[in-house]
């Protein structure tokens, strides 16, 4: 698990805004992601009611999580697989390592998994002499670049096509320098050719899971490249990394969520591949792994069940909240400093790494609510961000200057007569100081505002003073 650097959010966001390549890469969200999701939602008349159903389903599951996880485990065992319950990231890492050693693994192929990021599995395997090979195109690109994902479904969202070309030319130095990599399809073909051999070399395939189905013991992944299928079918062992809230009771329930997930994520009616895995290869199966393991991670989630933050666990990781977030549009994913960026990350990160280790994140939002308006499971993101703000304020994690400034202001706001008096003088002094100008270019104590924009000058007398005068004259 990489250490959170979320407390450096402000510095990192300033750097991100000054990075023209990042800004170019992020523009795809406003140009493509938002219109695509909007079209997909509009094309399905029952989309809004499906969001209600998805929310209700996830609420039901979270109320009966123990029951469905035990049912899932029993079904995995019945199909010849094994479930490993891991309370924290370290246990999960050790479990994966033990399994890889059982398989005498030298190479591990990987489909996209955010739980893999959460437990830092790549670095850990590499430290233990096992080479992890990412097979999702975006993950492959950032692995070559030694970066972490900046978006939960588009890990290389922060990289421009030109940068991908540079990375491939540098990393694939055995290929002719004269080859053309202008077209995205050429980049795709090159990655595919490079990865093809790696699939066959791999001893273990690790994937994530979008859903775990309790009634069948199946795990489900949603992909567009088919890499997940090769990753889990060719090696002798398939390890699924999943967190506990991914379980759903039935196949039917998985279908309900599948109707909102791709539409919210990419604007697709359905992703190109939806792959169901149930246990290891059976005698009649033409292919498949000999061993099937599910590493089930809690990592602090269960502590939030039944409490005010439980709603965050409804998340099905579609990424729509970050696609629609104006702050994410400005700074991208890395500024958030841990695994999950954007609005949902600003809720999950404090929950999983501690509020004090992610102080800026819940505050780095205008609470504009666009995330909530597109969330397929209707997570009330602004409400949950406010919950963390309240905890920060109550525990004095909020910076002292902000706390005392706020208390000072609130002292006046609770005393109308004094407030009136203070407002009267503020309006007069600012109006007088402006000397007939309409706006300030700079103003002491207002640097946060005037660094980037002018400040309109108060008209002079407050509304309340003018109103009192008007009433008196009538």
């Amino acid at each position, binding site marked *: 698990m990489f250490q959170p650097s979320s407390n450096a959010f402000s510095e990192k966001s300033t750097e991100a805004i000054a990075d023209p390549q990042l800004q170019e890469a992020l523009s795809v969200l406003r140009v493509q992601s938002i219109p695509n999701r909007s079209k997909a939602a509009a094309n399905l008349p029952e989309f809004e009611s499906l969001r209600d159903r998805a929310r209700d389903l996830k609420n039901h599951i979270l109320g009966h999580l123990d029951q469905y996880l035990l049912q899932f485990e029993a079904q995995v065992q019945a199909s010849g697989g094994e479930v490993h319950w891991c309370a924290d990231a370290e246990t999960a890492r050790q479990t994966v390592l033990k399994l890889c050693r059982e398989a005498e693994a030298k190479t591990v192929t990987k489909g996209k998994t955010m739980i893999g990021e959460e437990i830092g599995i790549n670095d850990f395997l590499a430290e233990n002499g096992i080479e992890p090979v990412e097979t999702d195109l975006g993950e492959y690109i950032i692995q070559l670049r030694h970066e972490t994902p900046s978006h939960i479904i588009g890990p290389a969202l922060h990289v421009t096509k030109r940068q991908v070309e540079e990375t491939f030319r540098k990393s694939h130095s055995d290929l002719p320098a004269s080859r053309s990599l202008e077209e995205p399809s050429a980049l795709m073909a090159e990655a595919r050719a490079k990865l093809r051999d790696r699939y066959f070399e791999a001893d273990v395939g690790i994937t994530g899971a979008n859903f775990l189905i309790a009634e069948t013991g199946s795990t489900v992944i949603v992909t567009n490249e088919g890499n997940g299928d090769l990753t889990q079918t060719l090696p002798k062992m398939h390890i699924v990394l999943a967190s506990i809230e991914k379980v759903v009771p039935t196949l039917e329930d998985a279908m309900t969520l599948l109707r909102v997930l791709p539409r919210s994520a990419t604007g697709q009616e359905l992703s190109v591949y939806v792959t169901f895995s149930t246990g290891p290869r059976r005698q009649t199966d033409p292919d498949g792994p000999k061993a099937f393991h599910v590493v089930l991670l809690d990592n602090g989630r269960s502590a939030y069940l039944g409490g005010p933050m439980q709603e965050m666990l409804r998340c099905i990781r579609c990424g729509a909240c970050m696609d629609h977030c104006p702050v994410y549009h400005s700074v991208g994913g890395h500024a958030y400093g841990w695994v999950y960026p954007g609005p949902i990350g600003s809720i999950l990160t404090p929950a999983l790494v501690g509020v004090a280790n992610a102080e800026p994140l819940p505050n780095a939002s205008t609470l504009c609510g666009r995330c909530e308006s597109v969330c397929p499971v209707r997570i009330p993101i602004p409400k949950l961000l406010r919950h963390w703000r309240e905890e920060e*304020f109550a525990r004095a994690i909020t910076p002292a200057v902000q706390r005392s400034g706020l208390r000072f202001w609130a002292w006046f706001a609770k005393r109308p007569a004094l407030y009136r008096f203070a407002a009267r003088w503020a309006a007069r002094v600012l109006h007088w100081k402006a000397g007939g100008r309409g706006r300030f270019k700079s103003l002491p104590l207002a640097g946060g505002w005037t660094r980037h924009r002018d400040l309109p000058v108060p008209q002079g007398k407050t*509304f309340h003073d003018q109103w009192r005068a008007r009433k008196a004259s009538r």
Partner: protein
Amino acid sequence: MASIPPQRRVALFVTCLVDLFRPSVGFAAVKLLEQAGYVVDVPEAQTCCGQPAYNSGDRADSIDIARNTIAAFEPYEYIVAPSGSCSGMLRCHYPELLADDPEWAPRAQAFAARCYELTQFLVEVAGFDAIEVSLKARCTYHDSCSSLREMNVKAQPRRLLGKVKSLELTELGDAEACCGFGGTFCVKFPDISNNMVERKTADIVATGADHLLAGDLGCLMNIAGKLQRQGSSIKVRHVAEVLAGMTEEPAIGEAE
């Protein structure tokens, strides 16, 4: 005054920004409400809706402010604010703040149900659209996030602006995007806020409009301040000023 039936009486929640920076917006609201046939009162005991405290995690102070505000406005049938943000606080968040208080929870609920954003009140409650003013201008409209997503205000200001003679309205691209104001956000994260308002002003300039209108003074001050820093001549006004025909007042940030 006592003979006026309560259903013809409206209490104006002025908002702290209008009180301090731009009282003309408050008087425009009063004028419109009076034109719609209401008597307007301005309860003395009001200050701010408490959002700076609420959105900064200071729950105790927010609750105190909410109780003061409810007590000040409780006698009125209708409470109207020339702001989606402040009316959203009164309507959506006061009941949440006081939900666990057996005495105040029902009072907050009853109060919240009577709170309206100005254009919403004019269209939905007053059924008023006798706007008889003109403004030769090419306008675009910024929906504040709270108007749009908390108060469901989108059609109402457009319907009223449609009555203003000679006014042409062009819609913004990515109209549902936040302008980057966000209350204390804009000074806590100035660079991000700036990046957001730069996207907004680019979208505004792209419409070719000569006026930018909105229903929230926070957004308006942010957008006006940025446009003016960029050297733009686009005029920025609260929608109430245009609807009330009070455009002789200098636009936001302009000298007298």
